[in-house]
């Protein structure tokens, strides 16, 4: 299980509550069938890996890993054999006599893992364990932790603000915002069926495209009305969302992921736009297209944008003032469009998302 969300969303606090380091005001926490609310952290049979590793600086690596065992009065021979086994598993055998300060970040990270593993606990709690590592090491450790978790088969709660870590490592992910759980489920499900506009905007890189549109209805069905153009909705989209009828002549937010937009006329209903920027990434190209329309500017959108980078939020506000929207289209790398070209973009209709503008919730049943 991975807790993910922007900084300050309460994911670390939630983890610390599970660990028993933070008091909880209501509700129950269970390990197996046992309610552990009033139980000391050390008695909960959970091991934690901290963001800054929290290794004991004056102890050798051996003693660091052995500490939780010694706290439980494990016999000396048992301590030795378990620490050595754990060290071998993590490739730390040759460092056992060293002090933490002589180790690299990645090695310290492994020691912190070792201290957790050696206890053979019921659950691992990991608080952004990779955030202090450089990008390359992070990718390596990501797969090491995933493999280890699979091999040991121990329930793990993993906190991160990095959605790539969340998507790649989680069997299930929980997206949090301002202390409130937004959605939880398998990563692919959360990605494909976001419960609200915040989850939709937060998960995915580059993020989902949004624009405001008015829902219209005529004798042949529903359509989304934008300044100067309309987008007809397929019957499948409408029949999957019975609640849509209540939104006729109201504004709602349309969301579509970059890979669900196709360039050029592909037969379906499409929108006209102007190419404003092209980013060639090798395996794919990101085509930025601009069209007249109203950007979705809500607190959730700004918060999700700030998490990407600080300028993204101001770009969003700027676009809203100029009444234009930039959409990103993920396309083949050998596309022949040029900046300034007029293009047709066709959304894959069954991957279209519609959200209530006020509540931010997805319009479904």
């Amino acid at each position, binding site marked *: 299980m991975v807790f993910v969300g922007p900084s300050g969303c309460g994911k670390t606090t939630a983890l*610390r509550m599970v*660990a*028993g*380091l933070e008091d909880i005001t209501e509700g129950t926490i269970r390990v197996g069938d046992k309610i552990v609310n009033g139980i*000391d*952290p*050390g*008695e909960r049979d*959970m*091991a*934690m890996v*901290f*963001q*800054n590793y*929290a*290794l*004991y*600086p*004056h*102890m050798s690596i051996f003693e660091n890993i052995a*500490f*939780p065992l*010694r*706290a*439980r009065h494990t016999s000396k021979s048992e301590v030795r054999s378990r620490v050595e086994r754990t060290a071998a598993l993590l490739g730390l055998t040759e460092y056992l006599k060293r*002090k933490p300060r002589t180790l690299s970040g990645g090695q310290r990270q492994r020691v912190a893992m070792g*201290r957790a593993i050696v206890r053979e606990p019921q659950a691992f*709690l990991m608080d952004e364990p990779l955030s202090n590592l450089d990008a390359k090491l992070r990718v390596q450790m990501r797969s090491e932790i995933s493999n280890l978790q699979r091999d040991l088969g121990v329930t793990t709660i993993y906190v991160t603000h990095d959605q790539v870590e969340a998507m790649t490592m989680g069997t299930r992910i929980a997206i949090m915002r301002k202390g409130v759980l937004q959605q939880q489920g398998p990563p692919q499900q959360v990605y494909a069926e976001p419960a609200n506009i915040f989850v939709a905007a937060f998960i995915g890189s580059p993020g989902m495209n949004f624009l405001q549109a008015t829902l219209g209805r005529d004798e042949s069905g529903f359509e989304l009305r934008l300044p100067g153009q309309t987008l007809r909705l397929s019957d499948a989209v409408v029949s999957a969302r019975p609640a849509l009828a209540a939104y006729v002549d109201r504004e709602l937010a349309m969301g579509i992921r970059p890979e669900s937009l196709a360039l050029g006329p592909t037969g379906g209903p499409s929108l006209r736009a102007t190419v404003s920027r092209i980013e060639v990434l090798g395996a794919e190209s990101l085509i930025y297209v601009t069209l007249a329309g109203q950007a979705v500017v809500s607190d959730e959108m700004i918060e999700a944008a700030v998490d990407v980078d600080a300028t993204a939020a101001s770009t969003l506000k700027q676009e809203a003032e100029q009444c234009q929207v930039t959409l990103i289209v993920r396309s083949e790398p050998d596309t022949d469009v040029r900046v300034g070209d007029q293009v047709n973009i066709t959304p894959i209709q069954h991957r279209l998302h519609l959200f209530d503008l006020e509540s931010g919730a997805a319009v479904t049943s």
Partner: protein
Amino acid sequence: MSVQRSSSRLNRSRRIQVRHVPWLIAIPGIVLMLGLRFLPAVFSAGYAFTDWNGLSPRASSVGLDNFAQIFSPSGALGSLGNTLVLAAILLVVSNAAGLGLALLLRKGLKARNLLRAMFFIPFALSHLATGYIWQFIFSYKGPLNQILDSLGLSSWKHTWTGDPKWALYTIALVICWQYTGLTMIIYLAGLEGIPEELDDAVAVDGASKWMKFRRVTLPLLAPAVTVACTLTLIWGLGAFDQVIALTGGGPAGATETLATLVWKNTFLYGKYGYGSALALVLALIVTCLAVLQMTLLRSREEQL
């Protein structure tokens, strides 16, 4: 070629000049320090081998006689013992109490800042002045005996500072009271330096309070322990103000320390030579013990 060589010589001389700048800045300070602190001490040490009385224009050499007298049965061995007892009590009590208070007042308690200030105040006040206040408290008609009276413990009453059995311990109590505030501050600073996430790690690892203290807190406090122990040892060996205020060294020399003896011989008894010899012995004891202690404690720190 020659141009190059001369420019390189110029560079070298400039480098030398740059290297000398810190020394040039430091020299006035060093001269003052040596002149005002160390030279008088060294000159004074010279008198330790004479019978100078502090006033007469002549002093004749007596060799090691002064030192022989110090270590003779009628000499300063009693004072040396008192000094070591005071230093030992101060070292143990003020460090244990200071560490205990620091652990208690680290966090949690609402009034901790007020309490920290209260415990520190005795150190900040004039030691001589508070010494006289304590003398009043310990006097036969003083508050301590009055409290004992009111508790029905009249048989426990003493002239605390006048009883050879008790006088030294009353002094020990007062200097411990005075210096515990400072050791507390040193240990609080040391505790601040221990990362908070280690508290969490210890809690999750399930260590008991005692194991946490012995295996994590105390080893990480090693630098603070070195500082606090060295300072209290030096102050304990040099105890003077409190002795003068409380007992003046009496009764019958029962609370005489090396420091009070130095002062008395040098300035009251007109035995400047003997006083200098005592001062030299005291300085050597302080230096040896402090260096020994620091070496021992530092070796623990190096394991960090």
